[in-house]
């Protein structure tokens, strides 16, 4: 199993100019930023794309200013939140009939997405083949047959594999929870 780097380790590599680190950084957080724009603030696709690029552009410029490398996830969430709200306000100014933003509702979605990222990090820790099977099934909405074809495994065994992989992710999350609980 590949050893997954912590967020802090990845940020540190980015700051040191490791050419592969930035690609990994974008790969790791792209879903999160995308989900905040889309699910959290319901930005139309062209606006979401602008905000998405602006978030990574600012992150690239300002990663050196981050005081706590472990806090990169909430830092990105706040950056995406702020830029999304700016975009919605700009749109509302141009088009006053736009429905008003419910910030509380958006923040509730952001909290849920933060939980989703915690699960995602646990899935990354579990690694392949579970990561690929669960990603295809839950995140890419692929059928058992499509997953079986791509991974060359019988479609009839996919459901049980998904179930076993979910148990592994849960065990990983339980382990993290125990490790972070004071003894």
């Amino acid at each position, binding site marked *: 199993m590949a050893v997954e780097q912590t967020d802090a380790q990845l940020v540190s590599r980015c700051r040191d100019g490791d050419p592969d680190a930035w690609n990994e950084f974008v790969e790791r957080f*792209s879903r999160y930023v995308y989900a905040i724009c889309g*699910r959290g603030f319901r930005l139309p696709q062209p606006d979401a794309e602008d905000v*998405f690029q602006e978030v990574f552009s600012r992150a*690239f410029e300002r990663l050196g200013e981050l005081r706590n490398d472990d806090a990169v996830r909430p830092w990105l969430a706040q950056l995406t939140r702020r830029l999304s709200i700016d975009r919605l306000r700009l749109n509302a100014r141009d088009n006053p009939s736009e429905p008003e933003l419910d910030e509380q509702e958006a923040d509730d979605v952001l909290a849920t*997405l933060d939980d989703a990222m915690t699960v995602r990090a646990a899935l990354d820790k579990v690694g392949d083949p579970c990561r690929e099977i669960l990603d295809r099934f839950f*995140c890419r*909405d692929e059928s058992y047959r499509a997953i079986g074809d791509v991974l060359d495994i019988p479609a009839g065994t996919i459901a049980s594999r998904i179930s076993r992989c979910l148990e592994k992710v849960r065990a990983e999350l339980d382990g993290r*929870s125990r490790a972070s609980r004071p003894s």
Partner: protein
Amino acid sequence: MKIEMNEFDEERIGRLLRLLPPAPEGWVRAAQELPAARAVLDELVARAEQDAAFRLQLRADLERAIAAAGYDPSPFIVSRLRRLLEAV
């Protein structure tokens, strides 16, 4: 209210995973190419600041001027440069 991590069950794990589909491939690629794109932008802006003729070419037809300067006029480069040129 935030739910404690040990309250994740398999059903909830699946529901949460569904909330994070991959971002469009082109968006991810453009973000990954940011370091290289920024270097190109720095060069183009520096040249525009020093070369009035080049500045005029950029203002007349941004994409063509970028290509003529030997760079790929990707949508990201074009939109960023348009914004940066407002300040030049």
